[in-house]
C-alpha cells in the first residue's frame, strides 16, 4: 500500500503512467471489441445464408 500511496503522490509521473495504461488498454479493448463484433456479424450472416441455402 505504501508503494501505491507514493505513486499517487508522484505528480507528473502519475499522469504519465496512468495515461500509458489507459492508452494500452484502450487499444487492446478496441482490438477485442472490433474482432468480437466482426465475428458476431459474420456468424449471423452465415446462419442466415445457410438457412436460405437449405430452403432452396
Amino acid at each position: 500500500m505504501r508503494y501505491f500511496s507514493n505513486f499517487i503522490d508522484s505528480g507528473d509521473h502519475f499522469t504519465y503512467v496512468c495515461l500509458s495504461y489507459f492508452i494500452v488498454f484502450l487499444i487492446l479493448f478496441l482490438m477485442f471489441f472490433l474482432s468480437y463484433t466482426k465475428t458476431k456479424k459474420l456468424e449471423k450472416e452465415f446462419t442466415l445464408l445457410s438457412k436460405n441455402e437449405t430452403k432452396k
Partner: protein
Amino acid sequence: MIFKFANPLRFQKFVSKYQPTLLYLSLIFLVCGLFFSFFNSPPDYMQGETVRIMYIHVPCAWFSLMIYSLIAICSLFSIVFKHTLADIISRASAPIGASFTLATLITGSIWGKPTWGTWWVWDARLTSELILFFIYLGLILITTSYEDKSKGDRYASILAVVGIVNLPIIKWSVDWWNTLHQPASISKLSSPSIDQSMLTPLFIMTISFLFFFVSVLLMRIKAEIIQRKIDVIRFNRVD
C-alpha cells in the same frame, strides 16, 4: 497434431470451446498483474514511478516481435505448402501485431518524456520499431486490397518473409549501435538484471497479454473461416 487442427471445421470447434476460457484467464492475470505493478513493486532508483510503464511497454514490445515472427513462419509455411490455415493465421494476426506495436510506440514515447526529456528520438530501436509498424500496415493493406483473397494472401506472405530482416535489427539494435534506449534487462532467464519485485508484475502482465493475444487471434481466425465460407456460398449462388 498440427495437421489435426489444420482442418478448419475442427479448428472452429476448438475455438468455440476454449476462446472464452482464455479471455477469462487473461482478465484474471491482468488483475493480478495490475495489483503487483501498483501495490507490490517499488519505484526505480533512476526512473522513479515511471518504471511502472515498463510492465505494459515491455510485454507489448515482445508481442510485436513475436507476432511478426508468427506471421513470417506462417507465410513461409503458406509459400511452401500453400495451406489456407497459414494464410488465415497471418491475416488474423497482422492487426493484433499492429496494435501491440502501436501500443509499444505510444507507451515508449510517454515513458521517454520524463526519462529522456523528449517524446521521440530517432534512436535505432525506436526507428526499427516504427519500421515494423509500417510493415504491419503494408501487410494489412495488401491483404485487404485484392478482390481475390488468395492473391492478397500470397503477396502478403512474400512481403512478410522479406520484412523479417527487420526483426534482428530491432532485437540487437541496442547492442550494435550506441543508442539512447537501454539494452535488454532480461536476456537470460537465469540472471536477469532487474529485481524480483519488478520481474513478477512484468511476467504476470506478459502471461495476461499472451492469453489475450491467443484469445483474440482464435476469434479472428474463426471470423476469417466464416468469411471464407460466406464467400463460397455467394460464389456458388452467382454461378
